[in-house]
């Protein structure tokens, strides 16, 4: 193993505590809630409070990551925040995070956007900077307060949450390799100034999500010489509960390998947070030697795949217990949801 190989030094997550049930949204639009819920395999989704946005979620996740990893935040040389709901069109979220965790001023920082995979793109940049020894630690965050037009299919799943990963050397899990599969596939978009994304409905499936994840996963597994059955865990981007289960089956993974990282049924689609939150949940329970495959998907379109091996240091790591955080929840009705999302103007 190369001594310079990057590893995950720490991680932290944050999911807002408000929830709305899919059935409650379906009730408003006159749809059969049970069939919508089972069709998507999503039962409820997280809702940001009125004072929460991508910046506050990123800061919470970053603080949890720094606290758990017990590193000196001053040694973080890069912070990238990936999101498609940055609070400002011009003015970075990453600087807000850097200031909040006291990593300023000796670092580079930037915001990324690549639909739901901007956070994992940030991870890849951190890996590159660490492996080229330009920085000691890099922090990559994927977070969103996902927008959905009232009445649109996205409204049942668009949720809020995020995760922060600190990349460095000699951490709790080695990142053995990472590859990406990228094409210009316009399945989902939001133009400048538009409040809600548009999407190509069924076009977001086979030629978009499935093609990119399957291709990236196969490319990486071939490169590192792994078979699906040899992984202890796999995490795939979760636009709903059904897609990751189907893509897992297509790649030869079994349900037990993906259950731990599958959060969408209980928190919805956290967009840039999705794959990273799933990976964080897996690390919450992983044992030394466990092998993990994580593959994100961002519309537009691309997938980043990571092959990860958990090492002995995980035993002493102060894990966050993300699933316990998710259990701490409060339900809201549709009217309250609309107020919290700032839809009443």
């Amino acid at each position, binding site marked *: 193993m190369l001594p310079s190989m990057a590893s995950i030094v720490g991680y932290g997550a944050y999911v807002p505590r408000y929830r709305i049930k899919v059935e409650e949204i379906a009730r408003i639009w006159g749809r059969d809630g049970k069939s919508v819920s089972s069709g998507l395999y999503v039962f409820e989704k997280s809702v940001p409070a009125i004072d929460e946005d991508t910046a506050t979620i990123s800061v919470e996740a970053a603080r949890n990551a720094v606290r758990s990893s017990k590193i000196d935040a001053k040694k973080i040389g890069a912070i990238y925040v990936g999101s498609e709901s940055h609070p400002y069109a011009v003015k970075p979220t990453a600087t807000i995070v850097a200031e909040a965790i006291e990593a300023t001023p000796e670092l580079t920082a930037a915001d990324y956007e690549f639909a739901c995979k901007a956070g994992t793109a940030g991870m890849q940049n951190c890996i590159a900077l660490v492996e080229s020894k330009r920085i000691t630690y890099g922090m990559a965050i994927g977070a969103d307060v996902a927008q959905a037009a009232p009445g649109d299919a996205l409204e049942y799943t668009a949720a809020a949450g995020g995760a922060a990963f600190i990349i460095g050397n000699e951490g709790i899990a080695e990142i053995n390799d990472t590859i990406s599969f990228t094409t210009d596939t316009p399945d989902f978009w939001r133009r400048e100034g538009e409040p809600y994304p548009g999407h190509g*409905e069924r076009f977001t499936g*086979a*030629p978009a999500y499935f093609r990119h994840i399957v291709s990236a996963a196969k490319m990486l597994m071939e490169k590192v010489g792994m078979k699906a059955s040899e992984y202890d865990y796999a995490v795939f981007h979760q636009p709903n509960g059904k897609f990751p289960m189907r893509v897992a089956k297509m790649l030869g993974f079994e349900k037990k390998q993906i259950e731990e990282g599958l959060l969408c049924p209980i928190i919805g689609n956290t967009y840039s947070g999705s794959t990273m939150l799933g990976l964080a949940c897996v690390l919450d329970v992983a044992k030394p030697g466990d092998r993990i495959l994580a593959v994100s998907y961002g519309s537009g379109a691309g997938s980043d795949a990571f092959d990860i091996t958990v090492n002995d240091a995980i035993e002493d790591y102060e894990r966050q217990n993300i699933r316990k955080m998710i259990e701490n929840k409060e339900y809201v009705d549709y009217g309250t949801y609309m107020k919290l999302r700032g839809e009443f103007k």
Partner: protein
Amino acid sequence: MRDVAVIGIGMTEFGEIWEKSFRELVAEAGIKAIMDAGIEGEEIDALYIGGMSTGRFIGQEHVGSLAVEVAGLEDLHIPSTRVEAACASGGVAMHQGYLAVASGMYDIVVVGGAEKMTDVVGGEATNILASAADREWEAFFGATFPGLYALMAKYHMHKYGTTQEQLAMVAVKNHYNGSLNPKAQFKRRISVEDVLKSPMVADPLHLLDCSPISDGAAAAVLAPLEIAKNYTDKPIKISASIQATDTLSLHGRKRFDALPAAQHAAKLAYEKAGIKPKDVDVAEVHDCFTIAEIIAIEDLGFVEKGKGGKATEEGLTALDGEIPVNTSGGLKAKGHPVGATGVAQINEIVLQLRGEAGERQVKEAEIGLAHNVGGSGGTAVVHILEVI
């Protein structure tokens, strides 16, 4: 008037063909038909292409010229005409091609039909399709095609006791047939329960009572019967090609349990071909919704008016039934790229009459019928084809 034969057929796979553009679909179907007929491009005298709403689905009108360009026939400067009659565009293009050859004006005519529907999202597709209804008096007031056919279904159920299960059996049969058709959009077999459990679109029509949004193209090559044998050992004679019209709106019709235009076209077609409904060995009918197939088999005289549901339940129209209907899977399972449908129906009948329909082959099929409808019945085209 000369007798006319089909000497070549070709079609693309139907479905969500994301990776192929409209022009690629047109080219693929056209080239397949030309190769099947064994003709040279220079022999083609005219083109007709059916397309319902290419302008709104892909922003492209003037597809007659487009078809000539993709075929590489521009130097011949042959006439190429786009034909529109909503979902009967393909059938009407066939009728035009038939007239052109029968009249003696042209010898070799290529008829095509194509639609690329998945470049727009669902709600927009529904709106575009609603342009085949009466925009001023139906669509502007919220009527959609599922809604209009649901009204017909409700009336049929009320008047004749047709049941939801019988409607569902049309979908079950057509999905079974689709499972045997490599070019079908849906190859998954379904049960009556699957249909009844699928989401309600317009009461009593569930999602699985409705044909899908599809991409695809189909083509056929026509020639005078007297020279058809020069090109193929198995020319299929068009023994009748009849087009009929009725009111654009559903509410303007004299009756709601039938499509009078289809009844009229069928009557004239049987007279022209000199056959009776019971002589038909295989039929492709316009099952845009399950109720449409039940009404169609009544309008075509396969069963008495009102007995279509019962006949379907009893297997009259099944692949091994007395008159197999929609052996291709029909619009329901094969897919319904609106402009292509009428020509795709001809493709299936020709395959059946040539004995080339593979696993879904109807034994000793010698007379086939294609029934193509535009809108809620404003246009109907019936073709009768025969082995010679």
